[in-house]
């Protein structure tokens, strides 16, 4: 009986954590599928598309100081509308017709993990 009680207690404690891990995994999966081709699997801006011909340097998401200058809304807007919305290159595609709101949000959170930063408010 006490064993079941302990298991139940463990599930209660681990439940929310496990859910959080699953959400992070989705952001990671989305990132590897859509973003890594330019931003690299580790988010350092060195994906396979960044050949000598690539006209810009894709953002390195591990640069904490640079990423801290951006709010979540800034990141969200660029994911949805592409580089030109922030006066950046059209090489950053508009993903707004590809990804739903939850997926965009998961990506924002994943980028925050990569930069280990929270960004400016707003």
């Amino acid at each position: 009986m006490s064993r079941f009680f302990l298991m139940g207690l463990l599930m209660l404690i681990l439940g929310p954590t496990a859910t959080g891990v699953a959400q992070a995994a989705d952001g990671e999966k989305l990132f590897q599928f859509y973003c890594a081709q330019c931003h690299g699997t580790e988010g350092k801006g060195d994906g396979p598309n960044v050949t000598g011909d690539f006209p810009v340097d894709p953002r390195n998401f591990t640069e904490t100081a640079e990423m801290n200058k951006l709010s979540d809304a800034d990141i969200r807007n660029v994911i949805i509308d592409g580089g030109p919305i922030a006066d950046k290159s059209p090489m950053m595609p508009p993903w707004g017709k590809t990804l739903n709101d939850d997926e965009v949000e998961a990506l924002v959170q994943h980028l925050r993990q990569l930069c280990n930063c929270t960004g400016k408010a707003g």
Partner: protein
Amino acid sequence: MKTLASTFLGLMLVAMATVVAIARADAAAGKEVFQGSDCQSCHYTQGPATEKSIDDQLAKKGPELWYAGSKFQGPWLQAWLQDPQPIRPMKFNSVMEPNPGGHPALSADQAGPVTDYLMSLTSDAVKAGTVKVKKKNLKGRLIFIKKMPCSGCHQFPTKKKFSGGLSGPSLVGAGQRLNPDWVLAYLQQPKVFKPVKMMPVFVGLLSDKDMKNVAAHVATFK
């Protein structure tokens, strides 16, 4: 005179029926070769597409071929099957692994019927004759290179040789490889062909006219 005309018409109809019957026979023979060569272990030929998630897409081992007859040009396909050089710089479904090549080749005797079979697999979403191809399409070029990020992921021919990114299929030689009407349909109705893909959806971002121009520009790639 009337008898002569009706005889001629009759002969024509018989000839056309014979051509169709031979094509069907070749397609049937090609299907046997396709299945016998284990092509279906990597390529699926039954549409419509059913992928709903990234996992579904990543589970696929090779490009789907259920609309191959709408996508490819027959002469190119027949030649490629005999000398299958990589089209994708990167391995299918991989971001980081280069394409090792090594796609199995067919003999000339096999490639003809298999081409007939694959060209018989078509999609109603592709409307023939929609894209008007000219020597140049400057509006399409501008969208491809400047306004949209197409060149970021797809190699394309340039004066020096070729340029562009590596994650998408190369578009070098696309003028001989792809049916421009399929390129347009792929832009207009991506979910019909590949519901989950690494390429962004441009529906609602590019007008039909812009998409036609892009498809016409891609058709000029040598």
